[in-house]
């Protein structure tokens, strides 16, 4: 049984209340809760899926967007394979903050080549009528920042949610050295100098 399963860590970042947890719930349990707690710290779950014939274990990391939980979430950026930058289309400030989220991620995740790192941008709450951010504005930002794929989603209606996550998986595969992330069942490569986890706590 020498099947190779890929474990991908995908992290959701964005202001508090933009709907990160709702997106994850929609994707994994196909449910939506209109009364959700703010997330505290960090949570994750694993979801097995098949994308383009590849068996993938998608490890989705949901983080707390509120500023006061910053120190609880940043230690866990490290090791991410893809980052989902999320804002809410009815909240212009959350859109403006995208650059800050990106910076925070790159800094704490210790990404070596930020230009090549796969980001995906999600504009959530598509179902809301009073938009503050236009499609064009969002697309332009994605273009200017490195040509990130952009999805307009609704966790409430389940619009584009699965597509967005699957795109994230594809992006990871597409990015460099994907084979390194394949974990063989019975052998472990230890030839690289291991990165220690300690430097992530400030």
């Amino acid at each position, binding site marked *: *049984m020498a*099947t*190779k*399963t890929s*474990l991908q*860590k995908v992290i959701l970042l964005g202001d508090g*209340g933009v709907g990160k947890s709702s997106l*994850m719930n929609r994707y*994994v*349990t196909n*449910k939506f809760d*209109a*009364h*959700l*707690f*703010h997330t*505290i*710290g*960090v*949570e*994750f*779950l*694993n*979801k*097995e899926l098949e994308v383009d014939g590849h068996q993938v*274990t998608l*490890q989705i*990391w*949901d983080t707390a967007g509120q500023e006061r*939980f910053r*120190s*609880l979430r940043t*230690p*866990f950026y*490290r*090791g991410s394979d893809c980052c989902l930058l999320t804002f809410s289309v009815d909240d212009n400030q959350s859109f403006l903050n995208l650059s800050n989220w990106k910076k925070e991620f790159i800094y704490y995740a210790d990404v070596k080549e930020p230009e090549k790192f796969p980001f995906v941008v999600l504009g959530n709450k598509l179902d809301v009528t009073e938009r503050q951010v236009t499609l064009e504005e969002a697309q332009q930002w994605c273009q200017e920042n490195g040509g990130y794929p952009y999805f307009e989603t609704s966790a409430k209606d389940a619009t584009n949610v699965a597509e967005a996550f699957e795109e994230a998986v594809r992006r990871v595969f597409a990015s460099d050295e994907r084979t*390194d*992330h394949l*974990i*063989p*069942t*019975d052998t*472990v*490569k*230890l030839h*690289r100098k*291991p*990165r*220690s*986890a*300690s*430097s*992530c*706590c400030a």
Partner: protein
Amino acid sequence: MVHVYSCHPFSSQRIVQVEQEPGLVCCGGGALFVVVSGGCKVEAYSVEEEGCPLICRFPTMGTVKSIKYSKIGDYLVTIEEKNDATYLRAYTNWRFQVQSERFYSSGSVKYCVHLSAQAAERARVGVRLLGHLLRGASLRSGIQTEIIEIPLSERPGAVACCPITGDLLVACETTLVLFTLRRQNQESLIQSQHILHSTWRTSQQSPSQDDTSSSAVNVSILDFERSVLLHLPKFKPKQVALCGGYVAVQAEVEVLVLKLDASQENKTPEFSAPDPSHEDLLEDQAEFLIIPRHQELLGDRARDCDISVSIEKTGLEGRGQCTLSYVLFRRLTPDFFQGCSVEETQLHSLQLHPLFTSNQSVSEEEPACIFCYFSLPSTGYLYSLKGGIELLSTYQYPEKVLEAVLTDYLLHVITKGALQSFTVHCAAVAARIEDPYIDTTMKACPPSNMEVCALRSQLFIGLRSVCAFGHRVILLSTADSDTPEETERSTQRRGLSRKWTLSSPKEPSKVGHGWNLYVVDTVTPLALYQEMAEYSQRYAETNMQAQSLWHLLSEAHILLRASLLQRGAEEQIAKGGSAETQQTDPQKQRNHGELDEALRQNCAQLGDCFSRSSQECHLALPYYRMSGLSVTDIIARNRPFPSSPHSYGPGFLFFLKHYLLEETEQRLSQETADEVIDIFSQSEPSQLVSVCVSPSMVNISPARTLQILQHLEDSMGVSVTLTITMATMALHLGDLVQYAQLIGRHTEMALVYGFIEEPRLLVHGGGVRARPSVVTQQLITSMPGLLVAAMVGLHENNKVKLEQADQIFKELDCENCLLVDFWEAILMASSQEAVIQDLLFRLVSVYIDRLTNADTQPSSLQTTSRRRQLRNAEDLMNSCSHYGALYPWLTVLNPPYTSSSHNQEALHKLQSLLCGPSLSVDSIAPLLESLSKNTIWGLSLHLLCATRRGHYESSIEKLLDCCPQAIIAYANHHLQDNNMVFWWQKLLPELCNRTRASSDNSILLAALKETLVVVSSEMSPAEFLELIPDDATASYFLPYLLACSLRQLPP
């Protein structure tokens, strides 16, 4: 040598229904944790339930390289890898993975165990960093599994959890890091709820969510605190273990055990800085292939090993320092000459194993015993670390062992093709720590360093790993990769749980997927004991002397001891909870009974074993005692078969001698007692006297015994003790003539020595209550002097205590007369000051009692009822230093007395004691107060007392008042040297005054004359003149003044 016994330690096996191939396995807390091979999730199965159902699944963050479970805190700790980075993580609250499903789904209250795989995976897992507990991340605890990420500066290689505290020890490349487990209590949780409230979107609060949060209150929340760092620059840790402050670390061929102690003193931490010259040496060595020599260093000597360790305290809490001591160092070098390759000498299965004694409470105290186990592929080593560090057992494996796991009862090892169990002797160590008096004539336990034995092994195919939990052993087997089995899942095997036929080897596994996870149940220790006991019967029948029989019974014994320890520990736990339910549980009670009965049975068998053995035969005594068997039963068990040439074993005779020497209240029946006599006349006739005088033997038939003793005398010659024993038998027969004839054979002195040699001829019941023997009862009337002399002999030789002798005399001698004789005799013989003072006091009381009672009773009655005393006052004054010669003035005071001679004696003895040097007057003064002062003898005693205390003036007055004729004798005796002054200061003025008052009193006048003679000879004329009263008749005093002046003139 390893004994192999064909006993079956396993009862049944079950197969756990795992869908994907297991990679790593660990167990504890009633659960079995399986890390799916290559996957990123852990599956937890319940091993307590039928069919081992899945409890839950939870995702891991990376590929798990190592997993350990901690009972304390119910957490799992993993070493994981992702993208070539290694992480250390603790998974807490994993059981709530199931319950959280409940909140997410329909909210049905029913506990659902058989979750669909998808549902089980849907639950979110919280993540937080070590130490980030109070910021609110703990809020969801209780409803959600939480991972604590533990950052390390070095790559972690091995982990271990302390079974007592739940602390965590991590081995990195050159350091060991100790994390203390912190459990947050409820209050702080409630306190932190305000964060939860502030987290709600005020507009969207829902009451149902409120319910969810309050359910979290009962759960304690875990965190860790980095507390100590140990730097081991020259050691490459492969495995670690942690238990109650003991840290064990194992490299390829070395094991080092250290002990960490929190010390109050603020000393600088001990730094065993590496010696630079030493380091050079090691570097030199590295150029050649030098094989380090084999080493075993115990206790503080382990400091001499070339592994330097330095300690660094990092914890914020507790100002105190941590000290480090070395406990054990062992280096096992490959024996190339034995054809071993290097990898065959690699150590594995390092373990620290605690054992609590039954008088300890498990939760609070540090365990009484800690053991360290580690293993080579061919040999395992078990050390005891507390109460003296020692190698307890060496396990020689018949085959190359892959992994071993130590439990309270057994050591389980796996080879590629079998599971084998060995006995473990930890309980023997614990039993000795629990009861330091275990190796006595009362109790025994087999030696803890006894050779171990192997039990029957069970065949399996392709075993990979083993772990154990309680009485369950969990095995992972995978088919060899070079012989892949056809994949065909045989679903009908599912849920199959079958009993093993006891001796048939395990059939090869036909399960298609090539791997299997087994839960093997071991039999209860009691069942294993029973099999051993049955097995031992066969040994016993074939060869009674067999060493193997002893060994097997000892193994069985230790097994029972282990059960007793566990029972004790369980009772300790129950004490904290509801003690009543524990007691009323009939099943538990029955088990208790069974266990106790089994121990008695085993002790009886061990007793039998030692009673026949010539080696360590003295152990028959404690084992028989612990068996609870009666002597009659034990005699029956040791009766030689009529056909066999065997006589009685030395152990049996030893037991019997000891039993008979003891002053038990248990009396043997005549039949048994006669058999005992036969046993000794056959095996050890020289012991017959001491056997006959045992109080247990009172029922022997005297005629039969007398005959046997006569035979003995014929063959061995006459001895005093034998004669007295025979005389005793004659008394039992009522044959006073023969008795007298026998006693008459020896002088009184010889008889006294005989009694000293065998005190039980006189006194029975050396314990609390002493009883007189028949001989004593006879002697009291016929030869009281001998009895007193013999008792004094026993007392002076410490064979009998004063109180015991008193008891004997009191019981036999209603008038206490002989008792007084005895006291007087002891007073003559004893040199112990405490005894002397005690007896002086008692005798004074007795004498006073006699004197006062004489006053109230008619004298005729007294004389007839009283026995003649052995010694009169005269005898005592002559032979006993404590009785002084009577002062001359007493003779003047005591004209021949009118009362009985008995009372005269009492008075003289008392006066003599008061004249003697030993009696302390102060101690007896209260007794004297009751005496009348109106009688002359009473006065004499009061005067003696007052004089002894130096009250001369009052004594002079008293004497002049009551008995002036004695005054000059008194003054001559007492007013000497320093007391001369009383002649002129007290006596002369008194006499002058008194004669003036009654000038015709001739006694006073005579006394005055005598006094003037003395005074005039002692004083200068001037002084003398001063003394003469003003109104004196000059002519009366002139001659004395003249004598005085003449004395002053030069010759």
